[in-house]
């Protein structure tokens, strides 16, 4: 399902896109909202393991128990664990004063940092997350297992 709608494009030009090297800045064509995309349905879609399209050694696993684990193949010290949950403008997170209506956000809290993403796309095969703060960097994953 495509989820992100009504979200204004951030400053993005071809030079910056080149600099980020394959991991996209937000695009104005980031898709329209799809009716019926409930937070529960998106959460179910996230469960499983996803591999970064930009770096096949990096995987992110969302578990039913609310934990999320980032792993980097070949380096155990780069494993990072956090808690995750989804929210929208209706039940927004207190750390975000304002969010975009119709967009589902992912909150990941590792006890040290809280990271927010806008979910741009989540379906059986693909997951696109955009950092909800700073410069709005986009990361893309493909599913490798589950649910």
């Amino acid at each position, binding site marked *: 399902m495509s989820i992100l709608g009504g979200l204004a494009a951030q400053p993005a030009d071809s030079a910056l896109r080149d600099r980020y090297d394959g991991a996209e800045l937000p695009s104005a064509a980031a898709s329209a909202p799809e009716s019926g995309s409930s937070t529960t349905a998106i959460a179910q879609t996230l469960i499983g393991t996803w591999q970064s399209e930009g770096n096949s050694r990096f995987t992110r696993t969302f578990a039913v128990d609310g934990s999320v684990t980032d792993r980097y193949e070949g380096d155990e010290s780069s494993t990072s664990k956090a808690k995750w949950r989804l929210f929208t403008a209706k039940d927004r997170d207190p750390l975000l004063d304002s969010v975009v209506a119709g967009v589902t956000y992912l909150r990941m809290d590792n006890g040290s940092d809280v990271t927010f993403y806008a979910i741009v796309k989540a379906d059986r095969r693909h997951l696109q997350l955009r950092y909800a703060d700073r*410069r709005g960097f986009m990361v893309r994953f493909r599913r490798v297992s589950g649910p």
Partner: protein
Amino acid sequence: MIFSGFDSAGYPGDANMRSIWDNTELRWCGFYLGPGSDWNPHFPQIQDIGWGVAPIYTGKQPGSSHKLQAIHNRNAADPKALKTALWDNGVLDGQEAVDQARASHIPLNTILYFDVEDTTLDPDWLEYYRGWSRGVVDRYYGVGLYTRREHAAWLMGKLMGDGLSKPFDICMPTIWIARYNRANANGSDIPATDFLGDPLPAPDPKTVYSDAAMWQHIGNFGLKWTDSAGKTRKFAPVDFDTSIYPDPGTGFLSAI
């Protein structure tokens, strides 16, 4: 003493930069390097006004760089060759960062901050970043890192740990931490209450990172000030920052 600053992807314009300097307590700004940045031509004007400047380099990102992955795949069978190739690619980008700084007339010895937007803990990127640092330092600029707290802690631990290639060739960066006390999501409307003026909030002591010299702690807010003619002016979006240095580009030298 703590010095307030801001960074914004878009340049506010020469008139706003003058007015903000004259009428607020903000004393330094982020400055995005490179031909794609509209900050790029404005360093001389900003410096003449008196702003401290933290130049920001946009390079290959951890966890999502196709080019670093290609380097890994070409050298996967030989870990030593892999580290060398990643390092060498970083050196080239470090030299590019210096070229961009020079093109903006930013003087020698200025600290260039590598902007990490994707904070994946990526060991390949670590080698690349170390090479980048060497490429910058060898051309007489300083190195910084602009990232989130967990990523900075991971990197600093790696730099001070065992198992590094070239273990005696370490450039310790000046750290600029992005960790928000308050923020608005990208693309959202900024509430009127989120246009901040003097006095600007200080970072929450519970969120600071002891190795950092700078903190970005309020994201996607607006700036509101009264100009010299008594008129209220606004600029958005901006991220609010603080630093222990009046000029994070020159670091502790600016505090002497």
